[in-house]
């Protein structure tokens, strides 16, 4: 597969502010890549540089093998869906979608035909003559998509496309975007701060922070094997704790808030060091009342139970710290439904479910 986008040592500064710090990223043709991070991490700036709306301070951008670092957006085979959709209020929906084609000199009839096709792709063919004012937020977004797709660009850039929609619509649109990607076969690069979106839709997620890439992996890998404490905390939730590694009779041993736990095998190589560890709330298992907890158990008092419908999140006070554990309510044996705040409780965490995490280098 060809590299459709390649950035090399891309940097952008605004005066004293370093927005994008030496980023080298590549995207394969047909991929759905998401740039994920909190506001201010540089993801939008990076996207805008790929689109041509910001001039890089240094570094290079190539699209489909051609260098385009300082080329105007009108000359790049890339199209953007803006956060506020940027639909032209003085043109009808159909004319909006056909705008790029008209400007390129295509005859009117062909333009209308292609515009209708694009609108059909997003399910809005009946709205050709309507004014954008008459459409709902979700519909406007689909028009913006149609407008960007109709020119069959090599890459589609999406700048926080779902942030203006309400929760229900957002879920629906995530699925629709994924379907559209499969149907049309273009390369998608999406920017968002919502990790659920990133996990649901992408082939690959690039987590950014302070202008740098922290981890670049598939959603599964990101979730199961986060590299750093930051990624572990940003994508899903994680119980983080520091511990020094000692070698015990059965292998490496660590302490979680003062209580001993068997560590994953790989921790053996880090003997004597202070390392950051973590485990996800749903990876811990409740020890049913009455049975004897196994090797890797944590004992504590239930501080709080927060009900989430099919599961409950339980905060357990271990003495020198707190951990969160998610339990399914549907589980009959040792069910979460039977526990109460203030009770003593034991949970088990299997060693292979404990993650070894690196610390951030915070610039």
């Amino acid at each position, binding site marked *: 597969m060809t590299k459709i986008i390649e950035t090399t040592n891309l940097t952008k500064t605004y005066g004293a502010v370093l927005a994008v710090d030496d980023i080298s990223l590549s995207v394969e043709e047909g991929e759905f890549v998401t740039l994920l991070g909190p506001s201010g991490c540089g993801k939008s700036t990076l996207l805008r540089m790929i689109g*041509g*709306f910001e*001039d890089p301070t240094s570094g290079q951008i190539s699209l489909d093998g051609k260098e385009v670092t*300082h*080329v*105007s*957006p009108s*000359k790049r085979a890339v199209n953007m869906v803006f956060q506020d959709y940027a639909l032209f209020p003085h043109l009808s929906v159909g004319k909006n979608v056909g705008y790029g084609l008209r400007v390129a000199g295509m005859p009117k009839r062909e333009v209308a035909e292609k515009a209708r096709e694009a609108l059909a792709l997003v399910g809005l063919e009946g709205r050709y003559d309507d004014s954008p004012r008459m459409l709902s937020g979700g519909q406007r977004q689909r028009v913006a998509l149609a407008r960007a797709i109709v020119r069959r660009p090599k890459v589609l850039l999406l700048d926080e496309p779902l942030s203006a929609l309400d929760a229900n619509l957002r879920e629906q649109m995530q699925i629709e975007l994924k379907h559209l990607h499969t149907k049309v076969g273009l390369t998608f690069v999406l920017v968002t701060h919502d990790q659920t979106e990133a996990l649901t839709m992408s082939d690959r997620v690039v987590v950014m922070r302070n202008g740098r890439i922290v981890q670049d992996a598939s959603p599964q890998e990101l979730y199961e094997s986060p590299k750093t404490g930051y990624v572990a905390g940003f994508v899903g939730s994680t119980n983080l704790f520091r511990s020094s590694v000692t070698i015990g009779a059965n292998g490496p041993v660590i302490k979680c808030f003062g209580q001993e736990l068997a560590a994953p095998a790989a921790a053996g190589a880090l003997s004597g060091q202070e390392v950051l560890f973590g485990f996800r709330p749903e990876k811990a298992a409740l020890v049913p009342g009455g049975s004897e907890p196994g090797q890797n158990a944590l004992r504590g008092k239930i501080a709080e139970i927060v009900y989430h419908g099919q599961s409950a999140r339980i905060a357990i006070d271990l003495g020198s710290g707190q951990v969160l554990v998610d339990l399914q309510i549907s589980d009959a044996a040792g069910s979460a439904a039977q526990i109460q705040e203030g009770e003593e409780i034991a949970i088990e965490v299997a060693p292979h479910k404990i993650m070894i995490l690196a610390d951030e280098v915070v610039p």
Partner: protein
Amino acid sequence: MSTSRLVRLTRAAVLSPPLLWTFVFMFVPYAILFVYSFWVQKYPTFVPDFQFGNYIQIATDPQYLNVILRTLKIAFFVSLGAALIAYPYAYFLVFKVKRPGVRMALYMAVVAPLWVSYLLRAYTWKTILGTTGILNSFLMSAGVLSEPSSVFLYNQTAMIVTLIYVFIPFMVMPIYAVLEKIPHNLTEASGDLGVGRFRTFFKVTLPLSIPGIVAGFTMTFCLSFGDFIAPFLVGGPDGLMVANVIASQFGASLNWPLGSALAIVMLMIVLTIITISDRFERLGQGKFA
């Protein structure tokens, strides 16, 4: 074409005409005006020099000083009068008129006179107030006067009335705009807290409308300060304002240096007032923003 090059060329194209125009027709004229104010009159015209004589003359000759003070006084009373009339009108429109159609109509009614020639609107007062005019003949036919009175025209009061008449719409517009922006729930909340309507007005509405009052007052003051039409039409001999004096320097007297100096003085006064009012406006906004 690269992004930066395209952007730079577009900027140059957009910026050049306005910048050029502003430079040639606004900056340069003021600069020359400033330079001329230091020149000196020499029969039959005037010659380059660098002397403060014109300014000294303005500051010391009571003739010029009086005119400036008189103009300031008149501008002040005009602005005050216009404000006192415009404010209740705007207040009524915003707070007492419920139907938007009626409100629009009344707003247009007060703004419409602006579309009629300024010269004519000032002129009509000449016809109304004159000795052979309508006011006099009306009062005579009503038996109030036995012969026409010349007291109505050709004095400062006539000028003030005329200018107030002209500037009322200028006052209504900013006050209306600022009153309209006051959220209704503010006055409701005040009433809800047990504050009487008068006090609500003085403590809530009035302070919030200060930026509009200041804007209208400033514009009216500056424009009446520089007016020469009303004095010419209804002012009479002791109704001369600064603008008339300046105009005559560029006319018969052919004393352009003195005229320029007077113009610079007028410019300074107006700029000072605008700066002060800007501070005032920001004060009013800062307090309640």
